């Protein structure tokens, strides 16, 4: 590919990412305004208290708080005003548009570099944000989640903002160590699981908020009334994490195989490897916690948040603070 074409594609990619950020901002504002409009519907009675999540200590039923009924995609909201409905439609459409723009940006970046666009932290971030947005859009087809979407879009925007300001590097060639088809396999699995875990993180965080609100026993008002029930959030967060966990395991294993090829050992306790294992252990603890009496609900959600924190640290902290074999973040 000619240098000029590559430069043009790189510029196009940057513009698309900026356009996506603008669109995400619009989507965020529309969704937030919709939630605000929903809660100021005149004359509407506050939503009644929902059944508290049955943490069901000593219950022999494994799915105590999350029977299939709770997962039914029945709308959680009372009939909203037409303005709120309009805002919600705008927000959802712009969200799709923004995600398409971001996908275009990622593809253009890959074309400009002549390789899969995940060779440095910038590329990893924009692709991860794309995966998170796509995962959310897929999830939203089945469940009404606008109250969750606001936060997810905020996280995506934050990621993109960080990517274009702090992590940005111009399009460049890959280091010899990265030139392997394992880059495609290992890093793609890592990006997918990171994106999926991001959605799960938002769900787990909101689960904690919802459960706290429900425990007060008072009628839910304002934003809290627009949130899905804590039990539903818990079940959704579990399902999303349960999808991300095998993918993360695969990412670690693919990394080990690549390490065997590239460095001559499949596991060498490099800081990146250590933190990948820590993340794996914490998410494994989360999956176990959800089946342990007394741990379901808020406590399990806290474990999931800790897992996500270790994932973030592995991505940012390890690249920035520790010298290791994975030190080609490009920052």
């Amino acid at each position, binding site marked *: 590919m000619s240098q000029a074409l590559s430069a043009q594609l790189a510029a196009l990619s940057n513009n698309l990412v900026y356009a996506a950020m603008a669109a995400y901002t619009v989507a965020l504002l529309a969704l937030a305004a919709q939630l605000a409009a929903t809660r100021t519907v005149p004359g509407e009675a506050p939503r009644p208290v929902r059944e508290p999540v049955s943490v069901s200590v000593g219950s022999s039923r494994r799915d105590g708080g999350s029977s299939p009924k709770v997962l039914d995609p029945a709308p959680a909201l009372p009939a909203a005003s037409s303005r709120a409905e309009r805002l919600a439609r705008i927000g959802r459409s712009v969200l799709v548009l923004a995600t398409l723009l971001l996908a275009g940006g990622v593809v253009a970046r890959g074309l400009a570099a002549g390789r899969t666009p995940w060779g440095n932290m910038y590329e990893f971030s924009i692709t991860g944000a794309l995966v998170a947005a796509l995962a959310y859009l897929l999830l939203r087809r089945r469940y009404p989640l606008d109250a969750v979407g606001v936060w997810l879009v905020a996280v995506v925007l934050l990621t993109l903002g960080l990517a274009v300001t702090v992590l940005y590097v111009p399009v460049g060639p890959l280091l010899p160590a990265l030139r*392997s088809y394992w880059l495609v396999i290992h890093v793609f699995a890592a990006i997918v699981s990171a994106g999926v875990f991001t959605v799960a993180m938002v769900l787990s965080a909101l689960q904690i908020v919802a459960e706290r609100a429900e425990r007060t026993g008072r009628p839910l008002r304002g934003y809290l009334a627009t949130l899905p029930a804590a039990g539903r959030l818990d079940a959704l967060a579990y*399902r999303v994490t349960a999808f991300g966990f095998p993918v993360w395991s695969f990412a670690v294993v693919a990394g080990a195989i690549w390490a065997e090829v590239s460095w*001559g050992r499949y596991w060498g306790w490099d800081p990146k490897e250590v933190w990948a294992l820590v993340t794996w252990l914490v998410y494994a603890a989360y999956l176990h916690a959800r089946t342990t009496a007394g741990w379901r609900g808020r406590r399990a959600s806290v474990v999931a948040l800790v897992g996500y924190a270790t994932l973030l640290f592995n991505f940012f902290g390890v690249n920035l603070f520790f010298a290791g074999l994975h030190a080609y973040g490009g920052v």
Partner: protein
Amino acid sequence: MSRVLTQAPTPRVPPPVAPPPLGPVGMARWAWRQLTSMRVALLLLFLLALAAIPGSVVPQRDSDPLAVGELAASNPELARWYERLGLFDVYSAPWFAAIYLALFVSLVGCIVPRSRQHWRAVRARPPAAPRALERLPAHRRSTLDAPPSEVLAAAHAVLRRRRYRVVRDGADGPDGAGGAASLAAEKGHLRESGNLVFHLALVGVLAAVAVGSLFGYRAQVLVVQGGGFANTVIQYDSLRTGALFDPADLPPFTLRLQRFTMDFADSGAQVGTPLDYDAYVRWQPSPDAPTQQQHIRVNEPLSTAGTLVHLLNPGYAPRLTVRDADGDVLFSGAVPFLPQDANFTSTGVLKVPVAAQPGRADAGADIGTETGADIGIEGLFLPTAVLDAAGPRSVFPEPRDPALFLTAWTGDLGLDDGIPQSVYRLDTSRMTQLRADGDLFRAALGVGESAQLPGGHGSVTFDGYTRWANFQVSRNAGKEVALVSVLCAIAGLTASLFVRRRRCWVRVAAAPGGRSVVEVAGLDRDAGGDLGTEVEQIETQVRAALQGSRPRPEGAP
């Protein structure tokens, strides 16, 4: 994954009654039950995660011995404490091993009884239909225009097609004799099988890692272009081995580095980024085998008899010739220099022991005496040299304007002391730096240039340069077991997370006029399933299978 299913309900708060005293057996049983409980397993998972972290913060002797040495030099008190706590070798420390061994004992202690249970569950008949099917989470009832025996056969086929294990339920009495007959069906045992496979496979991974650390080895050897090595312990620059490693196991190959090329980006946004390192080698798997050729690149190791030869880091080796005052050559050859930055600003030393040479007229007079007149040269090799206010450095990794900056010492190198020393560092404790005209002696040489050492110590010539490559020779014993285990683990994990355990019952009762009333009911044993659709589909398919029979909703005339 779901031990709670198999455990008796545990109250959150123990009753405030003092338990009866336990004997030693009782204590052991109590401890075992604790260790294999889910709560303790959770705790151990957290503990292991926590225990792994220090190894990423404190330098590890295994991966970065240099940093360990530096920390010990700069902060000996802290290093002593780290040493005591095993923080320089976290992953082989006893406390770390204690945590993961406890976790694995807990895991096995949980898996073995569950395997027994699962074995029984798999072979057991699906449980008989409950009396009141309409009280199950999903339930449908309809009337079909077919005799009960046909309906039963159709339902049996439908359930089999949907991969249920189906049994005729005898509890309801004889078929078609005015009473009701029913089918009990069950699927999803794969979930627990996957769960057990996952946990057992983790034990396999642990075993493979143990084998690897017992029988594996990892060595490094630096080879200058044109040079080579035979795969024996004495030729390695460094070697780490497992406890049961036997040097006789080393594959007897020999390898010669014919040509080593480095390619760097010379334009664009990332100038100077390495594009490719390519080591072209000729090698023999064993002394009497034919010579083979191969390219070793960063992600393309050479593999022979379970041993891998990897290309690690490269560098430059200036070719130097040192002559004495009479012009006799004391040393001539390539000296590997270690790169200090991405542009290969490289440092290195040359140690020239000058021994008493009996054949020479001036033997013992001023050189080669016990006090020593060895020559030590410290140099800086710059592939693309720039000398400015920031000092001499290289600005591009390829040799576009190579230069050698050097200074020299004389005295006793200490090579006869029998103490091993680094070939990259000069021990100057018994040496003095050469001076010229009152200043420290320095020379800057281009290729082919020479410098006279002051004080009649001879001369140094910068003949040119070549490249070197650092190779790693390693064997990861048990890696195949680890790979198979870990793939089994992921497959089992996926099954344990996504396979749904379901039970389904179909009850058929005769209705007047050769028709049947059929009830389909289902029970999900895992959260999140769409049970209603499942039951509906079963009913629809049974109806479709009984072509020609017209269904009637119950209550219709």
